[in-house]
């Protein structure tokens, strides 16, 4: 083989993987990178989308949203909504997974519970929002039951009162999202070798000690992975909040997604909406990098 042929062959070998990857790269570029870059571009323009000749705005729109107290309230609400959701998704998911994995429960009952517990996962966000609006409306079932058993003295406007609205939407989201944890943790629980528990029994370990020293450490990789993913997804929840409260009353459930939506489609300020979207992107990106690093470390 001549030197020229050898170098040609080398080049072909080097290029071949990229050629195989090119259709995927093209699709990713068109469907993910291009919209992202476009929105980033809009955030630096005046009258983005609405004008054919938008001028360069620098960081003006970022400055405007950082000066807006509603943005900071939205950020705080987003963090509260996300953190509470993830914590309770994990706690409830773990409790139900342990219950479904327990030998002490009758197998028939276990199968029924398995179906019941996974039900919230089968509903779309819109259906969940409608269900909870009906349940929590002032004349709804929840108020009626709570009044009958004497927990509340008068009707509570769960979604319409600034004091309770954020807790109410967070509660609805917790109900909607725990099955992800439950299913993932149940799969993890079934993968823990029985020998560990037998050895612990021989050592005289109590149930809570087995939970703390065997179950949780064994499930830790799943808990961290799912928590990070849940954090990223919950931070971007829109339809549930939009349909239940629309971000109100008085901005009390305004989160970054509803704040951005209103800027874009109520104020038609697509430049500021883009700046807000970029902020959400940066927060999500930070969490994603954290997730990728964690996965690599494993």
């Amino acid at each position: 083989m001549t030197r020229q042929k050898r170098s040609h062959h080398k080049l072909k070998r080097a290029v071949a993987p990229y050629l195989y990857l090119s259709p995927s790269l093209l699709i990713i570029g068109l469907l993910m990178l291009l919209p992202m870059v476009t929105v980033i571009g809009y955030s630096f323009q005046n009258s983005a989308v609405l004008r054919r000749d938008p001028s360069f705005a620098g960081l003006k729109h970022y400055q405007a949203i950082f000066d807006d107290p509603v943005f900071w309230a939205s950020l705080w609400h987003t963090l509260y909504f996300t953190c509470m959701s993830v914590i309770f998704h994990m706690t409830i998911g773990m409790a139900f997974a342990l219950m479904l994995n327990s030998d002490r429960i009758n197998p028939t009952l276990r199968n029924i519970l398995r179906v019941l517990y996974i039900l919230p996962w089968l509903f779309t966000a819109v259906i969940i929002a409608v269900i909870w609006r009906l349940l929590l409306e002032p004349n709804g079932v929840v108020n009626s039951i709570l009044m009958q058993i004497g927990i509340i003295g008068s009707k509570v406007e769960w979604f319409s009162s600034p004091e309770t609205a954020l807790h109410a939407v967070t509660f609805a989201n917790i109900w909607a999202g725990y099955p992800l944890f439950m299913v993932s943790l149940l799969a993890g629980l079934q993968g823990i070798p029985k020998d560990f528990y037998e050895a612990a029994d021989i050592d005289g370990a109590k149930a809570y000690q087995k939970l703390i020293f065997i179950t949780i450490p064994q499930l830790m990789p799943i808990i961290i992975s799912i928590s990070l993913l849940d954090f990223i997804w919950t931070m971007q929840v829109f339809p549930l909040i939009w349909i239940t409260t629309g971000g109100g009353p008085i901005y009390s459930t305004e989160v970054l997604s509803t704040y951005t939506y209103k800027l874009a489609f109520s104020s038609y300020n697509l430049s500021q909406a883009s700046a807000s979207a970029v902020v959400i992107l940066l927060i999500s990106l930070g969490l994603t990098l954290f997730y990728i690093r964690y996965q690599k470390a494993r």
Partner: protein
Amino acid sequence: MTFRLKPAMLKIAAAAWLLGATGAMADTTLEFTQWWEPELPAGSLRAIMDDFEAANPGIKVTLVSGPYATTRDQISVGAATGTLSDVVGLDGAWVNNLNAQSALADMNPMMDASGFDKSQVADIVKVDGKAVMFPVASFVYPVFVNLDLAAQAGVTKLPSTRAEFLEAAKKMTIADKNQYGWVLPLSLQTPSGVQNDMMSWVWASGQSMMANGKPDLEGKPVVDMLTFVKSLNDAGTISPGIATKTEQEKVEEFVNNRVGMMIDSLAHVNLIRKRNPKLNFDLIPVPVVENYTGKRGLPYASWGIGISAASKHQEEAWKLVQYVMSEKVNAKLVSLANAFPGNVNAKPDFVTSDKAFGKAFEIFKTGYLANEFTGLPVAEDLMTQFDVQAQKMLAGEQSPEQAAAAAQKGWMAKF
């Protein structure tokens, strides 16, 4: 013979090709974007367009139809990119933004050139002196009264003034039975309650929320309206859940005998009858301030029509607009939509065949259409801002004067 014919035929063919290529013989195809088609009986708008095509040989109409929100977004983007359809269905709340983008044609010169009788149209929406929209069909918002609840409460005379309305609402309210006098939807998801259920009180009394083209929310009319709404709330006559209630929920509560009175679109009459055929209700104009005897402003939402400034076929587009606004066609269209006509001479058939619509038509004819959000910049955003301040007031966080002042400050920033 053959020898002589051939060059002649070739010439004719060449001329035909040239004419076709230059468009002289080609049909003009107008694109008409609107959200009306899905809301009308299937095929009915297409049938009207077919009639137009038959009456105007050489002009074809392509309907681009979608739900309201999709159409709104499509028109916004089309205006920005210069790809707006030749003829566009418009909501009055959009025209200011579209005009700012120079996306809508001024129809004044077209009206003058064609000798169009301006007196035949109910309204011409103008922005900066440019005639940019005609309301084609108007959906007015009277007060619906549950006559059975009124009778049970001892309300013998239906309210005509605000004071009478408050009294009637108080009488109809039995909170223990989940029954209330009035319903006010102020969800931020769709803040149109500000326009339909709050500002309608101002317009009904011939008043205005504007002064010299600028917001005047701190003026007496708006502050009085806020004070009145607050008094209804303080008296416990408004169905709870105001801050998240939507228009659909408002209608549901009325249908289910849970509220005695609501301000709502006439377009919902058939829906209400379908949901509760036994419901005994009547329509009245929105009550006015004491001693007001002038004409009543009637809040409305409309299907408007306009022409794209970028259209290459404005002459043909104007023909379509004229056709839709003509007496017979307009009557046909609004009869299908259960709306009131944009042409003052058109009489929809339902007003004679249906008592409720007939009554509403009388209210419509004795009053005037009033919706000051039409033509304002970012109208939905203005409603959202007012909505938030009204919610704060109803939550007891501020007075009507403070709510009006805060909303005024927010609105001024948008003008």
